[in-house]
């Protein structure tokens, strides 16, 4: 038994002739904050989309809590390249659950370009995320025999909003909030689905240094409080260096480096990828 929440092996995502993610392998250990960085267009968000089931990877295995979650190995490629410990995991048939099934298992995410439900209030946005785990069916919900459950959902939602400092906006339309608070609301919504692993796609995008600083504290705080493992994509290097326990760097879909923050800072390949290589000197 490993202590990895998420284990990705040899994940490849191909769109026609473009290989967006190429043979990516990585581990996300329980309780840690892991970062995935890379230049624009490196395939980071594509990797997230594969993990959350939005895309079906062309090839590869994704295990969640030590159980195979997504698996695809056209023409036995997976088997040939396999170097790991559990061959049995790879021989089964292809698995490609829909995103909601993956969320149900305990992976929640936020989006790079915020995707809140625009016709709903702040309160409703969080409340809907509770829908999945509520014990009810459409009949009990329609005829209000689920009153207890509904009450619990509302109370938990309110508690979550108070905690995030969003309670005073509760009846406002979600999209009327300032940008920073919309990001926070998206995180609150993800937390409402009671995840074990939280994927944050550029949580600090568009924030000033002050806000970024607050976000760093906030991420650490929710990790403690909800016993979370966090996997994030970020471009703000100071944030990444400050909070992550381990960093993976990808470029053109392939992993080019991994290590502790201080190792990444001095890694020549990473510097080259970000700044470009000066050719023939």
């Amino acid at each position, binding site marked *: 038994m490993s202590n990895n929440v998420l284990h990705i092996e040899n994940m490849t995502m191909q*769109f026609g002739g473009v290989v967006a993610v190429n043979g990516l392998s990585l581990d996300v250990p329980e309780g840690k904050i892991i970062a995935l960085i890379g230049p624009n267009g490196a395939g980071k*968000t594509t990797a997230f989309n594969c993990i959350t089931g*939005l895309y079906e990877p062309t090839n590869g295995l994704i295990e969640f809590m030590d159980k195979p979650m997504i698996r695809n190995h056209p023409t036995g490629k997976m088997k040939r390249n396999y170097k790991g410990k559990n061959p049995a995991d790879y021989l089964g048939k292809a698995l490609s659950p829909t995103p909601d099934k993956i969320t149900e298992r305990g992976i929640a995410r936020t989006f*790079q370009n915020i995707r809140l439900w625009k016709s709903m209030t702040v309160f409703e946005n969080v409340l809907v995320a509770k829908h999945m785990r509520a014990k009810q069916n459409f009949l009990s919900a329609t005829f209000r025999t689920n009153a207890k459950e509904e009450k619990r959902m509302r109370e938990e939602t309110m508690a979550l909003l108070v905690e995030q400092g969003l309670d005073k906006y509760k009846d406002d339309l979600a999209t009327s909030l300032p940008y920073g608070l919309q990001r926070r609301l998206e995180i609150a919504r993800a937390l409402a689905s009671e995840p074990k692993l939280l994927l944050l796609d550029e949580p600090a995008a568009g924030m000033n240094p002050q806000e970024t600083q607050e976000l760093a504290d906030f991420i650490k705080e929710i990790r403690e409080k909800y016993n979370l493992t966090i996997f994030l994509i970020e471009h703000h290097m100071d944030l990444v260096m400050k909070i992550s326990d381990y960093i993976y760097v990808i470029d053109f879909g392939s992993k080019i480096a991994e290590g502790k923050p201080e190792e990444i800072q001095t890694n020549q390949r990473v510097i080259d990828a970000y700044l470009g290589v000066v050719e023939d000197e």
Partner: protein
Amino acid sequence: MEFFISQVLSGISLGGQYALIAIGYTMVYGILRLINFAHGDVFMVAGLFMIYLSSSLPVFVSVPLVIILTVALGFIIERAAYKPLRSAPRMSVMISAIGVSYLLQNLALYATGGQPKTYTTIPFISKTIKILGAPTRIVTVITPVLVIVLIVILTLLINHTKIGIAMRAVAKDFETSQLMGVKINSVISITFIIGSFLAAVGSLLYFTNYPTVVPLSGAMPGLKAFVAAVFGGIGSVPGAVIGAFIIGICETLIKGTDFSVFSDAFTVALLIVILGVKPTGMCGEKVTEKV
């Protein structure tokens, strides 16, 4: 055997007529991402134009007049009902299209007084001839030839003229082509003009094989032509034509059996199957939604 040959022949002919309608659907969809629900009714109105015009004018005058009027109708519909909604959600435009379809059907009902109108016999193409021993009308032979000629012209237009390039650019990316100085409105108008022209020609050929025109005459051919467009990959002209021929032939073959009721059902079933198996159709391009 003779029966089979005449079935196949009329299937090809029907397919050609569907193809002429399908091009209108596929071009409009390619550019505006709109299912032009009114297109089938434009086709029906063209049939009525012919009936009313030919009652007082000779055929060689009324045929061009029908085509001109139908083109004008298509142009006006676009300007009046779709242009004001250019920035509105897609659903609103689609509802507007349904509104136009409803309006055209009611206008037709008003004009005809609800009575089926007998279609004009166009002298030359209604004549009966024998091919491989199977009796058929000249229109059956003319249709595929005419369709191929028109499509060759259309393809040349799309691939080699300035307006054709503009059309392809707008179909690819609406906003960017606007930024690059393409006159969106005139491109869209021309698309509708071409679509209506082909529908008018299609209508002349189609209704020659049917005794009457009623306000709902456009609905079913419209639906089938749309399915043909989807089958061939929406936005692709050659795809739509191939799709239309396949649907036309299958439909006439099914009509020849005991299950003629299901000839329409077949089309819809085909639509579901294609969209389930290959949503982009035979010649369509794959688009991945960016998240």
